[in-house]
């Protein structure tokens, strides 16, 4: 198993233990014991220098699992106090990520570095190509002055011996908007003004340093109260668990939810509304429209790409419509979105119809803690069946496809798909916004923040290939969108 795999495994195990502690007769004590249960006295230390360090790190990860920021921990507060505070908490805030900075230690800072392979050649192309005068020759070898270096990597490109390398910091490199930086002290910091909550740093960090601040305790508390707790499952949930989604519904009810809705239900509304809006905009002479379902993309628009606003569809997300329906059906309920990614936490925070978010990983942990075998569950139907197109919303291309299928004349639409936000695709979007049209003549621009779509989200359990296959086969057995009322 690679490092990333092990880090995810560890995070999930901690979640299971937190949930088990909550369900036990002594939540506070059993939470305090999590690091000791996981690394008991005398154990062989799997990753770090000593058992104490390992426990300290497990404690930090547990803090995130309880829903608190790790950065603010001053080490004097015990896990039992955190557990107590989590129980007393009545509100969550709009910061959804937290960094376990102790894990950043192992990771060098982002810089350009001359390796031993430098031959001290006479040509010295590295020195002449550098526009910033950052390369000098000391003892016959090239040396880079980090104060002057702008990381343009020209020297890396010209060195005939490939002796100069860029040392990467995975979290920094993965962030499409430059919101994560390792500061002078060597710790990664997230600039929340810039952060679009895409979750790419969570997936990228080999030390598993970036965590979602979990709302699992808040949800478990709601389940214990006499309020109804209603789950809304993202279309991308198909293939993330064993069994089919009708068995999943039963399993979720056994796990403590009072009812379960498919967000695909809202996706059908989104598709139809968006198709109407698209036709209107084209009739008005607009050159293109861009979709507005992806939470990461919506935050990108808000924080970094306001110029594209006039082209963004006003249609709401599938989750928006679904939550509206749920609150109508159950006015006093607590609603929980079951999510493939952290970005949706930001969307939900802004929508008063949605109370909490539970990631796929967290739901998996809940099933494990409650020992629920999904494949052994009966099937429970949904009140409303959804279309094949809606059920493919979580796969790149699925949104544009469903808008197309909802149109009376399908030939008027030409989709351009942005499969994953990164520095290049953001540049492309900026150009499209500036020109007011797509250079390739396309008239609908679908943007998915994650490669592959929602099934590539940071909190998914299954890999892209398998989950896409499973969604496709489920969608194929569903009705066409034109037949869904």
């Amino acid at each position, binding site marked *: *198993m690679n490092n990333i*795999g092990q880090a*995810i*495994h560890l995070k*999930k*195990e901690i979640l*299971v233990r937190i949930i088990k502690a909550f369900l036990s007769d002594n939540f506070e004590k059993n939470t305090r014991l999590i690091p000791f*249960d*996981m690394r008991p006295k005398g154990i062989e230390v799997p990753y770090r220098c000593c058992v104490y360090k390992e426990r300290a790190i497990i404690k930090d990860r547990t803090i995130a699992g309880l829903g608190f920021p790790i950065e603010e921990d001053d080490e004097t507060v015990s896990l039992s106090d955190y557990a107590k505070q989590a129980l007393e908490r009545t509100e969550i805030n709009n910061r959804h990520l937290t960094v376990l900075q102790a894990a950043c230690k192992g990771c060098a800072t982002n810089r350009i570095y001359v390796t031993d392979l430098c031959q001290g050649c006479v040509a010295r192309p590295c020195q002449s190509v550098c526009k910033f005068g950052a390369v000098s020759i000391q003892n016959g070898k090239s040396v880079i002055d980090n104060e002057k270096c702008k990381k343009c990597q020209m020297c890396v490109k010209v060195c005939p011996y490939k002796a100069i390398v860029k040392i990467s910091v995975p979290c920094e490199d993965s962030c499409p908007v430059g919101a994560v930086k390792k500061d002078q002290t060597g710790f990664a910091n997230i600039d929340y003004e810039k952060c679009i909550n895409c979750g790419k740093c969570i997936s990228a960090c080999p030390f598993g340093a970036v965590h979602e601040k979990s709302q699992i305790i808040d949800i478990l508390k709601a389940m214990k109260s006499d309020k109804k707790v209603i789950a809304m499952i993202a279309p991308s949930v198909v293939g*993330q*668990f*064993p069994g089919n989604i009708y068995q999943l519904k039963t*399993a979720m009810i056994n796990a403590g939810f009072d009812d379960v809705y498919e967000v695909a239900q809202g996706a059908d509304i989104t598709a139809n509304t968006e198709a109407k809006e698209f036709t209107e905009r084209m009739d008005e002479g607009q050159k293109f429209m861009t979709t507005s379902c992806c939470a990461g993309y919506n935050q990108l628009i808000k924080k970094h790409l306001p110029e594209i606003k006039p082209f963004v569809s006003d249609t709401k997300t599938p989750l928006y419509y679904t939550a509206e329906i749920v609150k109508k059906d159950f006015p006093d309920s607590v609603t929980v979105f079951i999510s493939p990614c952290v970005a949706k936490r930001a969307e939900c925070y802004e929508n008063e119809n949605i109370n909490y978010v539970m990631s796929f*990983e967290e739901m*998996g*942990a809940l*099933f*494990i803690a409650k*020992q*629920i*075998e*999904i*494949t*052994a569950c009966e099937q429970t139907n949904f009140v409303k069946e959804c279309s094949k197109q809606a059920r493919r919303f979580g796969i790149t291309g699925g949104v544009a496809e469903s808008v197309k299928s909802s149109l009376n004349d399908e030939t008027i639409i030409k989709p351009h798909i942005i499969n994953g936000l990164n520095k290049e695709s953001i540049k492309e979007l900026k150009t499209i916004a500036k020109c007011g049209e797509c250079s390739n003549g396309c008239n609908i621009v679908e943007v998915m923040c994650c490669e592959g779509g929602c099934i590539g989200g940071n909190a998914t*359990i*299954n*890999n892209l290939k*398998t989950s896409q296959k499973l969604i496709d086969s489920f969608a194929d057995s569903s009705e066409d969108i034109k037949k869904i009322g």
Partner: protein
Amino acid sequence: MEKISVKVCTGTTCFVMGGANLQELHDLIPRKYGDKVEVSGSPCLGLCSINWEYSKAPYVKVNEAVVNEATVEKVLAEIDKQIGNN
């Protein structure tokens, strides 16, 4: 030579803890070993419920040997070991 039987656990715990990614064994094993090895999915092998043992999930059984925290590589290594032993 007896056929080697590989059972990939698809119970909830194993699936969530990383077993989802073992699905490729179903393509890989027949390709690599032909009919010398038989691979199938299995409901919960009962290993995850033994006192916190879920932390070692996902599990795969290669004949009677248990591979814990299973990865594709670990499972293939166990098969190779047993084929060598036979």
